[in-house]
């Protein structure tokens, strides 16, 4: 009950501090592991190079993929600020759902981008325990 209250109160007494600072920004990278063979790290759902005006206008009404991506950004930030199994499960399930069915295990890591002087630096802040891809895809079906 107390937990529900702590989730509810910020919605009716919001802080409205949008973009107060531009904090280090998370990216999710994943790799597939088959036995001893470790795949290379790949960015989850990379952005398109560009979007046309028509696509941008369509996204005003239909934007489920991007909104899920923003939710994953929230989960990544929460995982660093207040680690929880919920955030790990949400990232695992949603990354697995976007992948073709296959054997082996899925592992993800959180890379945070920030600016130091004129340089953009990448820092790996979290690496998950590998989980069977089939079981994740079964759970999200």
């Amino acid at each position, binding site marked *: 009950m107390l937990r529900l209250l702590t989730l509810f109160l910020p919605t009716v007494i919001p802080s409205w501090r949008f973009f*107060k600072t531009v904090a280090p920004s998370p990216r999710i990278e994943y790799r597939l592991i088959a036995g001893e063979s470790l795949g290379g790290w790949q960015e989850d759902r990379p952005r398109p190079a560009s979007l046309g005006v028509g696509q941008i206008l369509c996204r005003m009404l239909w934007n489920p993929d991007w909104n*899920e991506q923003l939710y994953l950004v929230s989960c990544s930030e929460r995982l660093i600020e207040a680690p929880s199994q919920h955030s790990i499960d949400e990232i695992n399930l949603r990354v697995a759902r976007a992948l073709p069915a296959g054997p082996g295990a899925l592992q993800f890591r959180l890379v945070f981008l920030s600016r130091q002087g004129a340089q953009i630096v990448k820092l790996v802040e979290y690496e998950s325990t590998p989980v069977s891809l089939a079981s994740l895809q079964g759970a*999200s079906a």
Partner: protein
Amino acid sequence: MSVLDVLQKGLTAAQAMGLMQLLLSFAIAQQSLEHLARGDRMIYVPRLLLCVAMGLGFGGAWPVWGLWLVSLAMLWRYQGPYNGGSDKMTMLILSCLGLAHLAPTPFWQEMALSYLAVQLVLSYFVSGWVKVVNPEWQRGEALRDVFRFSAYPVSEGLRDLADRPRFLFVMGWAVILFELAFPLSLLDPVALKLALLCAAGFHFSNACFFGLNRFFWIWLCAYPALIWFQDRIFS
């Protein structure tokens, strides 16, 4: 009736509530359909049905409170908002609308709507204030960083805007000054309507650049409360 007459017109509390429920039914239905594409039928099919009931005006306050309960379930399901500020605004509007329906007297109904109106003004003013006191925003660096490395730009091509510092400096200050000046628009009904039009344009550009489409629709839903508030307090 001229355009000026339309811009000067206020809303009664009942009109504001009716208009908010209509806009809200569209905005929440849009969110729910996006979620349904991902599954979670247990939450989003009832949510969609409640939107239809609210949009058609069935059931008085019941669909509003039904949607409030579903929003609470969503907070639990995702252990926080799914879509940040837009989910917070959805819950805030539903809470204020629900309380306005439950209010035993017109005074308490007006208090519930006034709270929403004040929060809407704060959503702009506080956002402007936290930026204007931040040296990174004052120098225009913060908006460059948003485009340079944040998770928000919807395409890699948009990151090139980070190489146009003068343009982003001007845009950053335009946003800050607009957000800080927004409360002044309450002094005049025409100024308020024009400010809301600019604010809608601001949310539209955020939707185009950063994919924040849900913010656009849900912020529009709260505007009738502010139009009523301005008419009630300042006219």
